[in-house]
């Protein structure tokens, strides 16, 4: 799961307007786009007998409000940014002077070379910790895909072991914790709460 291609981030160091302009814009545009998609999806839903709105009414309204709030969010953050640049420099350049850079992580996960990142402030999140996130997600996905064939005990043990090792536990400790946690979960859920956990070929 290592990401070795050192692709430099395309965006220049982002300039942060007050209160994370970028995240506001992403959320706002996402809300607009999502809202429109939902409205479009709710239009073909059937209507109640006499042409009264039916199942599509609520999703449609939610989509509409979502788009509305998104537009308001984008508008207000752009407005605030303009105010901020006006008050700080008087001119309005396309990239305003930065006040505390946004961490590259906020750009959507890509990070610059970790050695460069280490040289900078601890603000930047090195790539290795993003792999932590991916490993946790991957371990859960692995469980979903493999549990039916390998069974609960093996799959859970492997998933937890991988997480523990990635997060920097020592080998012996990781094996102990992964085995202990797997067995405890098995005893509590399968034996005590009578949940049918997936059986494997061996156990």
């Amino acid at each position: 799961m290592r990401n070795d291609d050192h692709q430099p981030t395309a965006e220049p160091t982002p300039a942060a307007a007050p209160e994370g302009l970028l995240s506001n814009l992403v959320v706002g545009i996402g809300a607009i786009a999502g809202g429109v998609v939902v409205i479009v999806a709710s239009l073909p839903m059937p209507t109640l007998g006499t042409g009264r709105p039916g199942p599509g009414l609520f999703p449609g309204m939610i989509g509409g409000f979502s788009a509305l709030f998104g537009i308001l969010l984008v508008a207000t953050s752009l407005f605030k940014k303009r105010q901020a640049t006006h008050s700080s420099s008087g001119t309005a350049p396309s990239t305003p002077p930065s006040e505390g850079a946004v961490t590259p992580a906020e750009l959507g996960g890509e990070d610059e070379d970790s050695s460069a990142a280490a040289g900078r402030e601890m603000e930047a999140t090195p790539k290795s910790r993003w792999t932590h996130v991916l490993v946790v997600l991957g371990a859960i996905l692995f469980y979903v895909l493999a549990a039916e064939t390998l069974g609960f005990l093996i799959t859970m043990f492997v998933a937890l072991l991988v997480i523990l090792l990635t997060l920097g536990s020592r080998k012996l400790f990781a094996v102990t914790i992964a085995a202990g946690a797997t067995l405890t979960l098995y005893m509590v859920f399968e034996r005590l709460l009578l949940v049918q956990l997936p059986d494997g070929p061996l156990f």
Partner: protein
Amino acid sequence: MIQDLSAGLEMVATPETIMVMVLAGVFGLFLGALPGMTATLAAALLIPFTFFLDPVPAVAAIITMSAMAIFAGDVPSALLRMPGTPSSAAYTEDAYRLTRSGKGQLALGVSLVGSVLGGLFGAVVLIFLAPIVGAFALQFTSFEYFWVAVLGLTAAVIISRGSQLKGAIALMIGLLLSTVGLDVTMGYPRFTFGSGELYRGIDFIPAMIGLFGLSEVLRNVLAPPTPNMGAQTLRGKQGVVKDVFSNIWRYKNRVASGAAVGGSVGVLPGAGSDIAAWISYAVTKNTSKRSHQFGRGKGHVEPIIGASSANNAGLGGAYVPTLAFGIPGDTITAILIGVLLVKGITPGPDLFTTQTDTLYSIYIIFIIANLLLLPLGYLLIRSSSYVLRVPRPALMACIVGIAIVGAFAINNSHVEILIMLGMGILGFGLERARVPLAPVVLGIVLGPLVEQNFMRSVMATNWDLTLFFTRPISAVLIVLVVLLLFAPGLQKVIRRARQRKNANNSTRSGG
């Protein structure tokens, strides 16, 4: 009433319930004491277990756990200068400074006793206020329920931290998620993408586990490892217990005002313990003669007493709208409502008419939980340095394990694990974009309520929409919604006007 009381007591005083309360309490203390692990996370991890319990022990587990977790958040405040839960953030500085000057046991001691007293007061608020509000709610029809739900949703957005527009968007996400599955009017499948397994909708429990459990794990593994250099140890001292009680007695007014603030703030839908603690801290600071000592120097116990009783009192208050209307007062009560619905109990006026024994057992649980906090909290203070040494990777792995099995156990299906995974990524992303998560939960819980009551009303009256506005109770609720919507705006206008006036005055006097 006596009859209900004894019936309620009978339901609580079973070995099963008591054992569940002790276990949930220990669980809450443990997770609450770890920085970054919130009471909501603990609640989310607890739901799969409550799923297998009877309603009363299930509720008991959640109430006990949250009372414990909110106190336990003070422990890392005092030892690491990091609040264990957001509710402790207001007075972290005071607690840490007291510890550094050798009074850590005193700081945690007053916080424990303050929490217990505040929690008991919150229970009293609940016991007296809930029936009154419940009686009011008895006159509700689907029109009023629609407006109450709208009121809850509005409050969730207004009170959400950070940008209110983002809170509103979060609410829309929650509402949208609640529409997945078969619709209420004609059973038409919405947003199921052809998957039959999504017909039953997005199950609440895996959604919560993902939103609050998995997303916290992801946030934690991304955060830089916390340097444990500032960790302080508690030094044992003779007579500290006596010291604690004499301090509580000296600042008994603070306990009372904190509890009152907490109890009333908690009642507001969407405002929880952390807001209660901040307000109480501000009140103490503004009214104390010793406020110059707060948060600096050697720290002071006075604000800790007020705020720690406020955040536990807020807990009881939050159950008033929860039980009376089925409108959650904070995220944990939103989770509780989800659990109750799964158990076949619809929170609301029914609880006050037909299920009074359940209602009384909830009251009794509140009192027992807070009394239980005293010995268990004492044990936590004694063993705090061990709890804080739990290795983080082990903790993360265990949470992931519980999250997977918990989500699976609800329906014995892997779809729930995928829902949990998706909601975890969603929660993680939203939190990084500083979008509050609480409105998402409220949207998921209240969405079906809003839609059902709206559709039921309009179909019964053949789309006579005026009835939404002309019924008297509806009108009162609408006024409340409008007030809520415009109160912050009005405040802002007033504040701005005042600032302008001040600025004018100062320029006039200056030049």
